């Protein structure tokens, strides 16, 4: 497929950490790499493999480089810079409102607690509200995860504003057990905030974590 060379990110394909040849650890550790892949596709209309993105991410540092270990924010920014995307920054301790602002600029990588991420309809019964469109299907994974926020909208009914929605692309799909390939999830900005705030509560992170763009395409 030829990338669309568009300013509309919805015209770009969703990418998934599973099902990509040569991905480190079979893709299991590649949620962040996959978000980078989508960011670079959007801004540069170039596609790099997950293994190449991992190589770029680790080219300047020597943190834990086991293939089944993901990449941290320093490696993310190094990879983006190496792939000629130089306008991203990292923020810790920010909230869902921050994401809502930055997603209006461009795709925004958000660290979340996956156990708190809204699930697909009739999946992952956890007592939480599910996603409005698509959502999580990897019910057993409850660790730290990265999703890419790509848009937002006002959720209205009969012309009355109810809440703000955010569109996200969750890389955790397209495995043999879960072959679905959703174009995006739509969840409320509130629910995204819950998943963000639970990242430091239930994982080794001590603060919320976002990598955001500073300029539009």
């Amino acid at each position: 497929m030829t990338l669309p060379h568009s300013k509309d990110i919805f015209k770009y394909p969703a990418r998934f950490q599973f099902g990509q040849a040569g991905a480190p650890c079979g893709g299991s550790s590649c949620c962040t790499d996959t978000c980078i892949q989508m960011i670079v596709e959007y801004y540069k209309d170039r596609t790099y493999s997950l293994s190449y993105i991992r190589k770029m991410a680790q080219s300047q540092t020597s943190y834990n480089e086991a293939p089944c270990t993901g990449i941290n924010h320093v490696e993310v920014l190094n990879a983006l810079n190496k792939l000629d995307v130089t306008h991203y920054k990292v923020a810790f301790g920010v909230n869902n409102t921050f994401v809502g602002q930055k997603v209006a600029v461009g795709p925004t990588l958000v660290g979340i607690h996956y156990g708190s991420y809204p699930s697909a309809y009739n999946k992952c019964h956890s007592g939480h509200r599910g996603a409005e469109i698509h959502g999580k299907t990897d019910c057993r994974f409850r660790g730290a995860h990265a999703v890419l926020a790509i848009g937002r909208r006002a959720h209205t009914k009969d012309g009355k504003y109810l809440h703000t929605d955010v569109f996200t692309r969750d890389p955790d799909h397209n495995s043999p057990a879960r072959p679905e390939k959703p174009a995006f999830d739509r969840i409320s900005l509130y629910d995204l905030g819950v998943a963000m705030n639970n990242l430091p509560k239930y994982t080794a992170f001590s603060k919320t974590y976002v990598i955001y763009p500073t300029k539009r395409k």
Partner: protein
Amino acid sequence: MSTKAVVLQAVGNVSIFGWLENLDFWKALPYPIKGALLRGLKAGLSVIVAALLTAATAGTLFPVTWGPAVIVLLTTALQALDKYIREWNIDVENTEANSGIPTADPVTPEIPSGDAAKDLPPVNTDATVAVPPQPVVEDKPTDLPEGEVVLDDTNDPVSPEDLPDNT
């Protein structure tokens, strides 16, 4: 960076149990098995440390000078194991995705909040990289620059308005 940050970064780069991930038999184990093994090891260590501490407090053990050193050593190992388990979420019962975003703590332990980009620590440019993976070149047309690939896309883009709500 402060001295504390430098020390924490150095400690964060030395993973006592990270060598496990280089062993083939360990790589082949499913995550639930790894988690069970590590949790078992942690529980065993915890019991031993607790017993030693109790005995040492009661004065019935370790009359020799190396006694406290053994307790410190085991406690350190226990803490490192706990950190390893928490850091990579290896104890979660997942079969597919693992934690793709390792904690930021070993790198920037002192970033308080907000836009922290300006506080990023310097990267270790002298670091050696252990055999980095190569880019996938399947279906790669010859006119693509190095590293670029063409992915098979069967997921056609969808407009936000094209899908029905779950609810």
